């Protein structure tokens, strides 16, 4: 039997200003599971965002993977709370890292940059645009050279429903690519407006989401991990990640500007 106290409490608690996107939650869950599998020693190469993880990492490249999907809650729109309330909230916000039970992310599973997406096929640029099963319009960036390889997978195990695309570029060694000239552009569907990225690095969002920045007028997040930079942005219905084994900040911004 519902008591008066219940009615008073239910009437006194505000409605949430933001709701989570179910698809994003599922994508995050898959992302987390993939990290766990990779760190647990799964023998199959597993895809996480822009990176392909495996316990037997190649080339000795240690890299803490960025976690774009782990932070994609739609928190960009301003909440109706006052400045005072946000100030108060800043004292009580729970860092995700503090309440997460997954130390695996912080352990930094190695990224196997050469591994292929699960059940992927190599396609041409033309075939990519007509590829069935993609829930977004893929972008083929013009970085002054064509991608060396384009991988497409619509296997849900590779990163979620709606497909996953990886475009592999190899640049000449330069100060921008001091160690390795590779850059990999990963594209996958996301239910997040471009403006939503800005909210990822504020409030309760973990620092690993990256630093918000505008590149060519597009909200983006820049993330540094062990000397290599990556960038996350949104174009239409696609989440785009630019990353590589050793990409400088200047280069990742330059590439993003050319998307």
């Amino acid at each position, binding site marked *: 039997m519902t008591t008066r106290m219940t009615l008073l409490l239910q009437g006194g608690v505000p409605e949430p200003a933001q709701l989570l996107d179910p698809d994003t939650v599922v994508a995050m869950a898959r992302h987390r599971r993939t990290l766990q599998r990779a760190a647990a020693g799964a023998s199959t190469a597993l895809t996480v965002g822009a990176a392909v993880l495996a316990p037997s990492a190649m080339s000795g490249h240690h890299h803490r993977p960025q976690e774009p999907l782990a932070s994609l809650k739609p928190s960009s729109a301003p909440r109706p709370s006052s400045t005072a309330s946000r100030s108060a909230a800043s004292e009580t*916000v729970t860092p995700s890292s503090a309440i997460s039970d997954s130390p695996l992310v912080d352990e930094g599973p190695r990224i196997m940059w050469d591994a292929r997406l699960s059940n992927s096929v190599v396609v041409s640029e033309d075939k990519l645009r007509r590829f069935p099963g993609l829930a977004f319009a893929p972008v083929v960036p013009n970085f002054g050279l064509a991608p060396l390889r384009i991988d497409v997978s619509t296997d849900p195990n590779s990163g979620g429903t709606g497909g996953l695309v990886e475009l592999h570029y190899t640049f000449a060694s330069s100060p921008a690519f001091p160690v390795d000239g590779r850059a990999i552009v990963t594209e996958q569907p996301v239910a997040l407006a471009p403006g939503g990225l800005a909210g990822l690095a504020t409030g309760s969002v973990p620092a690993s989401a990256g630093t918000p920045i505008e590149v060519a007028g597009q909200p983006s997040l820049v993330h540094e991990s062990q000397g290599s930079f990556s960038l996350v942005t949104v174009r239409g219905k696609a989440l785009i990640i630019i990353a590589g084994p050793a990409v400088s900040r200047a280069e990742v911004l330059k590439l993003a500007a050319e998307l």
Partner: protein
Amino acid sequence: MLDSSSTEDFRRFVAARQRALLRTAWFLTGDWGAAEDVVQLALVRAWPHWSRVAATEGGEAYVRRIIVNKPIDWRCRQSSVEVPTPTLPETANRADGPDVDLKRMLVAAVRALPPRQRAVVVLRYFDDLTEAQTAAAMGCSVGTVKSQASKALASLRREPLLADLELEESAP
């Protein structure tokens, strides 16, 4: 990996129940950002086991169990810096109509309770769970729920505006 029907069931659950879960988490954490984090993490943790938990204890009970215990853990660690406030900062709420002051005072008083007492009150009276369901969510005995609820209600009755309010013990 979950099959597609379980994943779809999970999506429907998130869409249908997240509002209630967020409100519960807000009550427990005192902040929308933290509430979103807690609910988000709880859902992410629940997803791989969805088929099993949905068929056994129930998906919502499982998610709620995660939500309830995470804020408690966090609040215990942060207790030295916790500063309960007498007023609700958020402006968008449903505390309107009759008893608006009473509602606000009651919510503020509950939020100022110690973490476990607050969790009991939120689960028992806000979520309207039974004592057994509350105990399951908190991972404690029914006796602990009763004793924590009793202490919580005694604290609430000490609030001037709530002194005359009949804080009923709902049916177990």
